[in-house]
């Protein structure tokens, strides 16, 4: 797709997203505002995973951990009476980055199957940790004491919160775009494309991958902070390993190797889940095989489809 066409498509997408709140209130369907806002938050999380999975080739099966860490940072502070949103969210991002640094430092020395299993195991460890802390509700979780207080925006205003999330998504995509095309991004992508060649020209991928891992974790932590404010409920289920699988699917379905792909993937997966769960409570028995089929037949993802049609 030529840059001009791509800009047009992105612009349209942005317009559509921005139009949701007024249309939702026009037709008195706040549900859709809620749904799209939730999808956008997951899109941010999926976009962060795209950096390391789509561009970096690092199959991290533990990315949902950072949703949990971000969420818990906000939730725990609120539990103890600290409602300052800037402080909470800074802590959410910072803690996620720190945990990503530690997990990444150990995990990135491995690759392939080991890396998948290790990232999964570490996430499960954090999940168990979350469950075992009775103070914060154990495996039932707890209600968010109060939403984050941000200067100039009331998160209790559904519309205002919506636009905040939209702005965050746009910023994440914009910075992501610059990042993957920078020298740093090129190294990450080169290491995925041909690691031996990358070492042969004098680059050791480890530190770059670790940095990417930390950045991805931090951005996902932000998504976690947004998510807990959205759900108004804090639960270890944020970190459930099946959530990690969902994030991966969003990246794949959307098409790896494109910055905006995860947004499409998030929409596709979550809308599908929403539709299916409306039909039957056993929707996973349909979703499961659908996912299998999508992997077997549908490699390039939705963004790939669009690209092909318009070239």
């Amino acid at each position, binding site marked *: 797709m030529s840059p001009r066409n791509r800009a047009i498509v992105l612009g349209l997408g942005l317009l559509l997203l921005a139009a949701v709140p007024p249309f939702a209130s026009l037709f008195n369907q706040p549900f859709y505002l809620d749904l799209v806002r939730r999808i956008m938050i997951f899109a941010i999380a999926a976009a962060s995973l795209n950096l390391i*999975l789509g561009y970096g080739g690092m*199959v991290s*099966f533990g990315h949902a951990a950072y949703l949990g860490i971000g969420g818990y940072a906000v939730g725990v502070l609120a539990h103890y009476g600290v409602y300052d949103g800037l402080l909470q969210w800074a802590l959410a991002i910072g803690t996620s980055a720190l945990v990503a640094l530690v997990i990444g430092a*150990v*995990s990135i*020395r*491995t690759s*392939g*199957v*080991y890396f*998948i*299993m*290790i990232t*999964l*195991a*570490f996430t*499960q*460890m954090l999940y*168990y*940790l979350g*469950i*075992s*802390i*009775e*103070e914060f509700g154990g*495996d039932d979780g707890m209600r968010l004491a109060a939403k984050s207080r941000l200067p100039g925006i009331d998160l209790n205003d559904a519309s205002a919160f919506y636009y905040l999330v939209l702005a965050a998504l746009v910023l994440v995509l914009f910075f992501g775009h610059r990042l993957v095309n920078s020298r740093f991004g090129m190294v990450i992508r080169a290491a995925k494309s041909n690691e031996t060649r990358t070492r042969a020209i004098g680059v050791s991928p480890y530190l770059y991958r670790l940095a990417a891992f930390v950045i991805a974790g931090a951005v996902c932590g932000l998504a976690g902070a947004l998510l807990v404010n959205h759900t108004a409920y804090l639960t270890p289920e944020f970190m459930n*390993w*099946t959530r990690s*699988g969902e994030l*991966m*699917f969003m990246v*794949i379905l959307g098409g790896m190797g494109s910055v905006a792909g995860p947004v499409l993937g998030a929409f596709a997966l979550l809308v599908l889940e929403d539709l299916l769960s409306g039909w039957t409570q*056993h*929707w*996973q*028995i349909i*979703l*499961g*095989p*659908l*996912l*299998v089929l999508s*992997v*077997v037949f549908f*490699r390039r993802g939705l963004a790939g489809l669009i690209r092909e049609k318009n070239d």
Partner: protein
Amino acid sequence: MRLEIAGGLERFEGPGRGTIRAPFFLPPLNLILVLEQTLNGLQLGVMLFLMAAGLTLVFGIMNLVNLAHGSFYMVGAYLATYFYATTGSYLLGVLLGLAGTLAVGVAVELVALRTLYERDHLDQVLATFGLILFFNELAAMLWGRAALYTNIPEYLSGHVDLLPGLRYPLYRLVIIAVGLAVAGLLWFVVARTRLGMLIRAGASNRAMVAALGINIRFLYTLVFGFGAALAGLAGLMAGPIYAVQPGMGELILIEVFVVIVIGGIGSIRGALAGALIVGMVDTLGRAFLKPTLATVISPTAADAAGPALASMLIYLLMAAVLALRPQGLFPARL
């Protein structure tokens, strides 16, 4: 929904439900309790081995990452429970459960997994993830989401006096025995038979084995089915001890991953070593960490930190092994 490890099928003695209350651990050392938990660790280790062996065989030979391995564990548990309940015979339940799991494994391999052998690991992970959702929901549809509790037959219940003062549940001893027997059988098959030779050859050079005229597809199906049966065996043995419910497979699967990382992927020896280590560390950690902590920090702090730390123990161990020896303890020689 955690993997609960009961202190014994019946309460051994002492107050409370499953946890050990501090400060029993102060001198004199309760040797009996340590021995009992060691045996429990061995029992968990043996079950982890059954799962790990199947998973590592499939990966070593077919280069396939199968996340749905835990689903076979669950299928084994459910089928055995179901057949025991409908036929009234435990043995029949076991046999039909094993056969059923084998059949399910073969069916999955034929229908869903054939296309994945050539794909990269990411695709395999995602596709088998879809399978997990399918199986969990299927189990929920057939038997509901609530946990089922199975009985053990008369002749397997009861205790054995291993030492004066140490009464250990017979059923758990049987599990240990079965697990060790399977380990021995596996070693024999892989190291000493023609089939084992084929398996080892297939692991190091698939194309060559195929070129020699061996029906590689049949070999793969066989290996996969066998791996599924092993998982099913672990599941049906686990049924009476842990709860049988949708999602039970994934909880143990993640521990199996830890086993494989520690032991080294692609090796049966590694699977056994890793499984025993993880089984021991996890069981002994959960039993004794809190009381041990309570001797150095306050009981209330130990109460809060103990279980959390205990559940993290095997992952911390995994991290330590990774830091020192990233390829595991016994990498890649079947």
